């Protein structure tokens, strides 16, 4: 369907807001309304390396003439909603981007963000992360449309729905690999209240100068060793099991109840959500704060997200990198 030539009034399928011809996203709720990313990229032309026609690109994104793999829509995802923005990048080593980012603005001040990291030893990790992030994001956006929603309750529902979505990822039995699974970290924000939920080792940080801190506690082997007082942070991090996670979403998940923290900042700051592809290079809140403090005051969220993702890419980009940044201004203050 050609949206731009349609004469009939256009409306968003999610929130019914009016759309302008050519819109790719609903201005109100952020739902994608244009053609699917996939079709858009394929229609957009042929091989970026040898200019072979679009038909030459095969189902695995390889050019059937020069062999060069094309960037798939998942390889680099960018969403800029001004108040919040995010980047998800395949990185420089992994063959697929098995992270997924969902970012939606709802109403005057509502924002919903979800970052999922597909577990790379699992089948269809990419699909698990994508479905998990979109399912949770849709539940959070829906909650923000209702005036009285309790955000913590919405977060629990969102993670439960994401778990169902991951369970529905098709997979074929292969004994040597895990079933589809992913981590999840979400943030839902309205009227100065921030509710963070997570399962696994994707993280959230509050970045505001000296008040910067990590909001989440990893569900990982390393973190459990440290929390139990068995190992120091350094000792645990050096162990080869350091990155083994103890909680996740998927068929064999221990449970799907997210851990939740709520924040009501009194001063402006930034909420940063990320996968371990970013925090491996900047584990401490201070490191992320230093990276962002180097930017000029009033820097747009998308620029801040680029800055963090680029730093991780420059440091090696060993894993998929996903980062979302929310500029937070407490109600009654407009100095951010």
């Amino acid at each position, binding site marked *: 369907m050609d949206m731009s030539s349609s004469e009939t009034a256009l409306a968003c399928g999610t929130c019914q807001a009016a759309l302008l011809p050519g819109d790719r996203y609903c201005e109100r709720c952020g739902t994608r309304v244009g053609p699917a990313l996939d079709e858009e990229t394929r229609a957009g032309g042929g091989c970026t390396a*040898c200019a072979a026609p679009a038909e030459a690109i095969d189902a695995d994104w390889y050019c059937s003439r020069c062999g*060069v793999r094309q960037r798939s829509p998942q390889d680099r995802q960018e969403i800029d909603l001004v108040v919040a923005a995010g980047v998800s990048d395949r990185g420089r080593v992994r063959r697929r981007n098995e992270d997924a980012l969902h970012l939606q603005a709802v109403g005057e001040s509502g924002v919903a963000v979800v970052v999922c990291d597909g577990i790379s030893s699992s089948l269809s990790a990419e699909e698990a992360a994508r479905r998990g992030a979109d399912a949770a994001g849709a539940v959070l956006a829906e909650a923000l449309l209702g005036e009285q929603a309790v955000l913590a309750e919405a977060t629990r529902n969102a993670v439960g729905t994401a778990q169902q979505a991951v369970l529905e990822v098709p997979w074929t039995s292969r004994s040597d690999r895990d079933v589809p699974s992913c981590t999840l970290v979400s943030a839902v924000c309205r009227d100065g209240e921030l509710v963070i939920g997570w399962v696994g080792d994707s993280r959230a940080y509050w970045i505001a100068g000296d008040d910067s801190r990590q909001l989440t506690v990893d569900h990982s082997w390393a973190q459990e060793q440290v929390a139990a007082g068995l190992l120091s942070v350094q000792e645990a991090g050096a162990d080869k099991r350091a990155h083994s996670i103890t909680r996740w979403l998927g068929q064999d998940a221990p449970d799907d109840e997210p851990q939740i923290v709520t924040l009501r900042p009194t001063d402006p700051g930034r909420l940063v959500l990320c996968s371990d592809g970013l925090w491996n290079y900047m584990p401490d809140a201070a490191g992320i704060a230093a990276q962002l403090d180097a930017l000029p005051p009033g820097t747009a969220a998308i620029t801040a997200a680029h800055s963090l993702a680029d730093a991780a890419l420059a440091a090696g980009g*060993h894993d998929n990198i996903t980062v979302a940044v929310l500029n937070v201004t407490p109600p009654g203050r407009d100095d951010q």
Partner: protein
Amino acid sequence: MTTFTAEAYQNEYLPAGGEEVNAVVTVTASDAAPGATSAQAAEIIIVDVSGSMGSPRAKLTAATRATAVAIDCIRDGVMFGVIAGNDTARAVYPQEVRLVAASPQTREDAKQAVAELKATGGTAIGRWLALADELFAATPEAIRHAILLTDGRDEHETPVELEAVLADCEGSFQCDCRGVGTDWEVQELRRIATTLLGTVDIVAEPADLQDDFQAMIERAMGKATGDVSLRLWTPQGASVAFLKQVAPTIEDLTARSSAVDALTADYPTGAWGDESRDYHLCVHVQPRAVGEEMLAGRVGLMVGGETVSQALIRALWTDDEQLSTRINREVAHYTGQAELADAIQEGLEARKQGDEHTATFKLGRAVQLAAAAGNSDTMKLLAGVVDVQEAHTGTVRLKPRVQEADEMALDTRSTKTVRVKKPGS
């Protein structure tokens, strides 16, 4: 119904600027009902009846007995024939230019005809093969296989004549070659067997011919799918450095390609039974930037005009040396096996030329490689040619006196490889 699978083993990471992509592709054919093959087959046994086969007389006797055993192994319905070769070629059974369907009666008649063979005349192998090609022409749909037995050099025709016949026969039938005694030329038979996608071996003792013939025929009867090719796609700007079969034997297929289009070529692999073969592919590609990925090759199997299974060979450029310097186990193993075959052939050649220094060095290296990879059969053969002092350092001394048959056995079997030991197996 045979199903084929292709699986690639490689380190896909290349350093910045890296252009050489190596991969081992394992192709496995498995038959749902082995032994119950209904494939059409045609079989010809070619027996050398030159004068030398009569001295000692045991040679011809053993050859005719072995042929009789082979005839008994031919399944009912298989089209077959026997050719006697000296400086000409003669259809011994049936005594006209055609093949007959195997049955209890025809097998008996054939054995009768073979028993009456006399040794006389010279050796012109090209003419024997030309007659086989003519006989096979009537059964283009069948899986076509021949056994060729000789005891001497191809003396009664020119190498050019032999080459011309080989060119005609290539792709028309497969031929396993056997040399009996020690008066034949390893290089010559290897050339014939390689061109005709067959094996070559020495049968030093005529008495051992029966078992060998029986094994060859049984293997031929087990082939269920004929004319299988590897189809290799490589990207524009890439070149195939080599494509070798590396297990069960080393056969360089590089020069055998026939172009399908500008980026795709087919390499013949002959007929397949229930078996598995490994191929080592080396492709040179045009490097891309760090972080980019390229499909460096796609290996498919062409069976009856259709691609039945595919393996993808990838290249991914990285500046992480830990990733790019890792050598894939399978690739390393077969690189060693290929070096082993070369070291044996070069060492034996140097020994023949009287260059003891090179011979000792090459055969010592062969001992070292064979010991490391666990080629126990090759080790036994090497021990017939050198005294091994320390296997793991390749310290050897050439034996002053070597049985010619031992040397020829080592040469003919130098291309036999062992497979990678899989972890936990």
